[in-house]
């Protein structure tokens, strides 16, 4: 039995992307309930009770984040929805916005009311331009039906929603870079503090939340925070959208109840139905490219031999030595034929490409890691290169303005920790390392110098 669905239950209803069909299926009930029967603080209280944690990756409790929002007199406050979705392995927000856009709009209205925002923004990655149009259409429909604009449902509450695109930059998913980008600038993360809750968009108090987080506010308000908290285990409450990719029979977006076992998720009929082409599982990155990779024996079981569950706590069980993280729920599965070194190289290249360049440990370190991994992957590397990677890692970790540096370092460290012999094989078998891979086997200019 597949678990309860609170977000994407209705995606298959024909026409659910239109206001009328969405409304007929119970849509906008949370707006009616909140605006007519609840004070903003009562909405915040329900979100606190729900135990909802941010779905963008960090898992910070949403109710607590909301209660940090500064409320100086006469200064506007903003809610900004993070629809940048650029973490490799993650594509759930796109699915939600494309299939059931009014759920996000509804969540934006209810959440903006709770925070006292009168204009809220949805920042969406530029590549999702077609979804920007879907959202703008949904906003226009909501406005035409009295859910946006002045004096919504006679409550005296006013709200406008604006969608703004990025232009292709992973770093703009980091909340302060996002705010810079929304102000029409380069996406360079800001120093914290001050946190956005105090000084955010245009220097005003701002809450930044992920698409899924904001959508989850809808069932929380409708059913009450306590009901929501009944689903799940420990501090992992409610449901979670998981983006499943890689060598799976049925990759795609799944809504799971927190606490489903990883085994069930990979092999179960309601979920991914196992590894594609009858192959065996080799490794899994359970929470997007920034979280540590797990070798097969640590995917479905923890180091202590317990069943690994799809929760924040269980996936992190064992720390970095033998665990990983739920992160954004970007669940990437590798079959036995995949080359971990090559995968690690593509991620290093990704982070080097996406570093904003503000701090030298990240700017230089990600570039070095890319180059060193390139030469290892293509059979030009040495054993010292493996040690060098570990050293670069330590120099980046914790020494940067934003977490992108750590996000780049951790996956490399984890890949070496669990698959060291595969890195060594690339050194001891240079000819095979070159032929078993595609393209790019020419050394870079700097590798030729080093050879």
């Amino acid at each position, binding site marked *: 039995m597949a678990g309860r669905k609170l977000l994407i239950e209705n995606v298959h209803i024909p026409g659910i992307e239109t206001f009328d069909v969405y409304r007929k299926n119970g849509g906008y009930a949370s707006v009616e309930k909140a605006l007519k029967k609840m004070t903003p603080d009562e909405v915040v209280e329900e979100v606190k009770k729900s135990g909802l944690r941010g779905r963008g990756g960090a898992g910070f409790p949403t109710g607590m984040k909301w209660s940090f929002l500064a409320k100086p007199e006469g200064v506007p406050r903003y809610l900004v929805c993070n629809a940048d979705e650029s973490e490799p392995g993650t594509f759930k927000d796109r699915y939600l916005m494309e299939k059931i856009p009014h759920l996000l709009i509804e969540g934006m209205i209810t959440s903006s009311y709770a925070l006292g925002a009168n204009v809220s923004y949805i920042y969406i990655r530029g590549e999702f331009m077609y979804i920007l149009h879907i959202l703008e259409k949904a906003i226009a429909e909501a406005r035409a039906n009295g859910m946006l604009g002045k004096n919504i449902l006679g409550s005296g509450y006013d709200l406008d929603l604006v969608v703004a695109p990025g232009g292709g930059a992973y770093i703009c998913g980091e909340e302060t870079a996002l705010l810079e980008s*929304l102000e029409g600038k380069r996406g360079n993360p800001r120093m914290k503090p001050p946190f956005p809750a105090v000084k955010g968009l245009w220097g005003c108090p701002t809450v930044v939340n992920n698409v899924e987080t904001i959508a989850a506010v809808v069932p929380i308000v409708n059913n009450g925070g306590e009901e929501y908290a009944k689903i799940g285990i420990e501090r992992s409450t409610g449901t979670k959208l998981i983006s499943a990719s890689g060598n799976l029979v049925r990759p795609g977006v799944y809504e799971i109840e927190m606490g489903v076992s990883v085994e069930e998720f990979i092999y179960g009929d309601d979920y991914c139905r196992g590894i594609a082409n009858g192959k065996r599982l080799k490794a899994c990155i359970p929470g997007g490219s920034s979280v540590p990779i797990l070798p097969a024996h640590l995917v479905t079981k923890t180091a202590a031999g317990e069943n690994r569950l799809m929760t924040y706590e269980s996936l992190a069980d064992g720390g970095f030595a033998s665990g990983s993280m739920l992160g954004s729920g970007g669940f*990437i599965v590798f079959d036995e034929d995949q080359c971990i070194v090559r995968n690690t190289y593509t991620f290093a290249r990704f982070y080097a490409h996406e570093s904003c360049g503000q701090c030298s440990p990240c700017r230089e370190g990600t570039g070095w890691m890319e180059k060193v991994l390139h030469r290892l992957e293509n059979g030009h590397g040495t054993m010292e290169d493996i040690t060098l990677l570990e050293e670069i890692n330590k120099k980046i970790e914790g020494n940067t303005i934003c977490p992108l540096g750590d996000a780049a370092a951790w996956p490399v460290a984890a890949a070496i920790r669990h698959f060291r012999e595969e890195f060594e094989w690339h050194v001891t078998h240079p000819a095979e390392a070159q032929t078993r891979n595609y393209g790019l086997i020419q050394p870079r200019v700097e590798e030729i110098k080093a050879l």
Partner: protein
Amino acid sequence: MHNMKIESPSTQDSTPVVFSAEMMTEINAVIAMFPEGKSKSALIRILHIVQTNYGWTSVAAMNTVAEILNIQPIEVYEVASFYTMFHLNPVGNYVFEVCRTGPCMIVGSDDIIAYIEEKLNVKVGGTTADGMFTLKTAECLGACGYAPVLQCKYKFHEHLTKEKVDEIIEAYRAASLVN
């Protein structure tokens, strides 16, 4: 790092261009979305409008954008050069951005890129002799579950196979004959 090269204005004609009335209507609507004095927030979306109309983002067009937003040209260049979607040099009519990051790579994006290179007789970064196609690679496009993936003119083409690539190329060729 975002170190795309922008050709200096001396190699590109920098005289501001005149945008069409339709473009100006669209641009003014975007500016109107933001509060008084915050029109710079419209910049990225305006650059998308420019690129949709001209195919790329030239210095001349960026200078016009600077005039419209009443900001320095450098404020436009520094933004356009930071974001990877903006082409700062001329490109073909259709730009293929093929994702090559991990989740796409493990289901065969390298083969797809090699196939397109062979089929169009271009290398990554190059444009076909007839100016029809430019091949680029992209980092994760947010469609990993439908990999391999390429994007062209904001449209996603997913679950790519060689046959599918053939069809896509044929369809774009046919479309450009109609226009």
